C-alpha cells in the first residue's frame, strides 16, 4: 500500500487542448488536488505541440495518440479514441506496478476506457458528469443520441460515486439515469479569481471593442441552441431602446452565421460584434471590461461562465435555470431573467446598465461569493474527501 493517495484521471481534453468546460475544470482540480497531497496522473488526448509526457505543478500528464483517421461520426471517434486511451492507461498502470488507488473519469467521452480499467485492475471508479445528452439535445430523438445517452447511463452505473457540479445536475442525473441517490455527490465547479486580479489599464483595450459612450454587454459561450444565444440576440433591440451599448459575442458554433445575418438584416451590425474564439488574456480582459455579462442558457448544468463574470467583477444577468439558478441570488449576486424570454432578459440587462449603484452592489457581493464558495482549494478538499470515503468502503468490499 502506498501512503499517498493516488488517482488516475481520464479526460478527453486538458490544456492546451480546450474544447469546453472539462479542460479548465480538470486542470484546476488536478493542480489543487496535488497541493492537497494527492498524486494525480492525467491521461488525455494529444494536441499539436504538446508533449506526450509532462509534469505541471506535481500533476503528471500523459497524452495519448487519439484516433486520427477520418471517423464516421463524433461518437464513433470517441469510442475509437477510447481504445488507445485504455491501452495506454493500462500500460501506464502496469509500469506503475498498479500503484493507483482510484480511477476518475470525466463524462461519457472516456467512459469505455474508465470502465475497462476498473474491471481489469479492480480499483474503485468515479465519474464526474458535467453534462448529459438528453440535456444537450432537449430530449432523445435519434438512435445516435440514445446510444450516447445509454453510454452515459452505463458510466453512472459502473461508477462507485457520481460527482455533479450543481444540485440541479444531481436531480437531473437522478431523473435521466435512475442513479441511486446515495451514489450522487454535489461538488461545485470553481474559478480561479487570481487570474482576474491583475491590475492593468484597460482603456486602450476597451477602445478596440466599443466607443467610450457605449456600455459593453458580453456573451461568452458556444453559439448553439442550448446556450440561448438567439434569446440574447432578440433582446438586443429592446435594450438599445433605452441604453447605448455594444454587444460582444465571443465563441463559435453552428448558429453564428444565421445570427450574424439576422443582426445585419435588422440593421444592427454596427452594434453587435462576433469575435469568434479569443485567447485567454483577451477573454479575461473583455470580461473585466464588460458592464454586464449575459448568460441566457436554456440548458446549463453548471454555468462556469457566471463564476468567471463574478470573478471579473462584471455583473451577471442569467436565465433562471439549471446551475445558474443556484449560483446567482437575484438582486444579490446577479440578476435572474425568465429563460427563453427576450423581454425579461432585456429588462435585466437594462437594469444593470442604467442603475450604477445596483450594479456596484452586485459586483461586490458576487466577488465575495466566488472567493468563499467557488475556490479550487476548497473544491479539491471536498473531492479528496470523496476519494477517501470510497477507498474506505473499497477496503471492506471483496471484489468477486
Amino acid at each position: 500500500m502506498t501512503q499517498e493517495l493516488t488517482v488516475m484521471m481520464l479526460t478527453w481534453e486538458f490544456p492546451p487542448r480546450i474544447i469546453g468546460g472539462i479542460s479548465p475544470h480538470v486542470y484546476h482540480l488536478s493542480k489543487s488536488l496535488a497541493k492537497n497531497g494527492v498524486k494525480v496522473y492525467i491521461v488525455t488526448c494529444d494536441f499539436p505541440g504538446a508533449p506526450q509526457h509532462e509534469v505541471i505543478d506535481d500533476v503528471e500528464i500523459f497524452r495519448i495518440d487519439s484516433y486520427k483517421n477520418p471517423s464516421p461520426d463524433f461518437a464513433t471517434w470517441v469510442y475509437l479514441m477510447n481504445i488507445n486511451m485504455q491501452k495506454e492507461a493500462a500500460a501506464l498502470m502496469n509500469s506503475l506496478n498498479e500503484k493507483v488507488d482510484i480511477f476518475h473519469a470525466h463524462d461519457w467521452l472516456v467512459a469505455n476506457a474508465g470502465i475497462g480499467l476498473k474491471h481489469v485492475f479492480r480499483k474503485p471508479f468515479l465519474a464526474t458528469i458535467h453534462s448529459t445528452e438528453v440535456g444537450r439535445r432537449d430530449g432523445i430523438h435519434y438512435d445516435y443520441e440514445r446510444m450516447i445517452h445509454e453510454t452515459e447511463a452505463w458510466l453512472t452505473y459502473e461508477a462507485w460515486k457520481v460527482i455533479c457540479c450543481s444540485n440541479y445536475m444531481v436531480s437531473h442525473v437522478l431523473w435521466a439515469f435512475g442513479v441511486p441517490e446515495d451514489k450522487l455527490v454535489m461538488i461545485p465547479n470553481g474559478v480561479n479569481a487570481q487570474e482576474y486580479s491583475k491590475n492593468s489599464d484597460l482603456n486602450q483595450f476597451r477602445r478596440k471593442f466599443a466607443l467610450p459612450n457605449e456600455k459593453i454587454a458580453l456573451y461568452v459561450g458556444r453559439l448553439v441552441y442550448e446556450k440561448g444565444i438567439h434569446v440574447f440576440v432578440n433582446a438586443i433591440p429592446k435594450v438599445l431602446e433605452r441604453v447605448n451599448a455594444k454587444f460582444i459575442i465571443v465563441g463559435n458554433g453552428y448558429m453564428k452565421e444565421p445570427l450574424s445575418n439576422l443582426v445585419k438584416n435588422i440593421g444592427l451590425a454596427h452594434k453587435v460584434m462576433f469575435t469568434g474564439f479569443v485567447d485567454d488574456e483577451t477573454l479575461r480582459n473583455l470580461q473585466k471590461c464588460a458592464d454586464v455579462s449575459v448568460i441566457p442558457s436554456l440548458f446549463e448544468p453548471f454555468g462556469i461562465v457566471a463564476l468567471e463574470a463574478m470573478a471579473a467583477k462584471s455583473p451577471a444577468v442569467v436565465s433562471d435555470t439549471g446551475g445558474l439558478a443556484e449560483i446567482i441570488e437575484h438582486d444579490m449576486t446577479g440578476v435572474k431573467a425568465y429563460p427563453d424570454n427576450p423581454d425579461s432578459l432585456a429588462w435585466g440587462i437594462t437594469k444593470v446598465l442604467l442603475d450604477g449603484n445596483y450594479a456596484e452592489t452586485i459586483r461586490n457581493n458576487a466577488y465575495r461569493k466566488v472567493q468563499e464558495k467557488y475556490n479550487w482549494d476548497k473544491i479539491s478538499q471536498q473531492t479528496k474527501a470523496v476519494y477517501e470515503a470510497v477507498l474506505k468502503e473499497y477496503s471492506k468490499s471483496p471484489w468477486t
Partner: protein
Amino acid sequence: MRVIILSWEFPPRIVGQLADYVKELAVQLVKRNVETYVVTYHDFLTGQHDEPVGIKTYRVANPVRTHIGVLTWVLTLNQEVERVAANIYYKTNKQMDLIDVHDWHFIQAAVTLKKAFDLPFVYSVESLEEHRSHNADTPFNMAIKSIEWLGLYEAKKVIVKSKWMRDELKRIYKVPIDKIKVIAPKSKTWIGSILESYNSVIGGATHN
C-alpha cells in the same frame, strides 16, 4: 496450459463459419488437457456455463443497447469482455498463459489485457475487412482496418487458415512473414500445430 479464447460468435450463436471452428478448437484443446475458457457474446444467455465437454464458457451482453452500426456495437461490448476475462484471470490466481482472439471484434480487450498483465495473445484471422468489404475505404471500413492493424501489431503470433491469407496479411498490413503461422483447419496436424504455436508464444513453462 490455460487459455482464454475471445470470439464474438460461439454456438448457439452462429453468424458465420467462425462459431463452429472455435467450438471445435475448444473441444480439441480440452482433450489435450488445456484448461479452456471461452468469452463470447450472447444477448440473453449471459453468465458462466460449463459445457459437458469441459469448456468453460462465459457469455456477455452489450451494456449499451442502442447502436448505429456494428462498429459502435463492438466498441461498447469490449469492456464486458475485459471484465469477464479479468475475472477469470484473478480466479486462476493470475496463472493464465495466453489469449487467443478470433477476428477483429475483441482486439481491444486482448490488447488492454496484454498491456495490463503482460499476457501475450495470438490473433487468429478468419477474415479481413479488405475482403468482407472489397475496395471500400470509407471511414467505417478504415476504423475496422485500424483495429485489425492494432491486433496484428500487438499479437505475439498470427494464426491463419491458408497460405493465401498469409500472403494477404503481408500485402495489406506488411506483417512480417515469420510472425504468421499457417494452420489448415481440417488437416490431421491441425490441433498439434495450434498447440505448438501456443507453446512458442508462451515460451517457458505453462501454468497448468
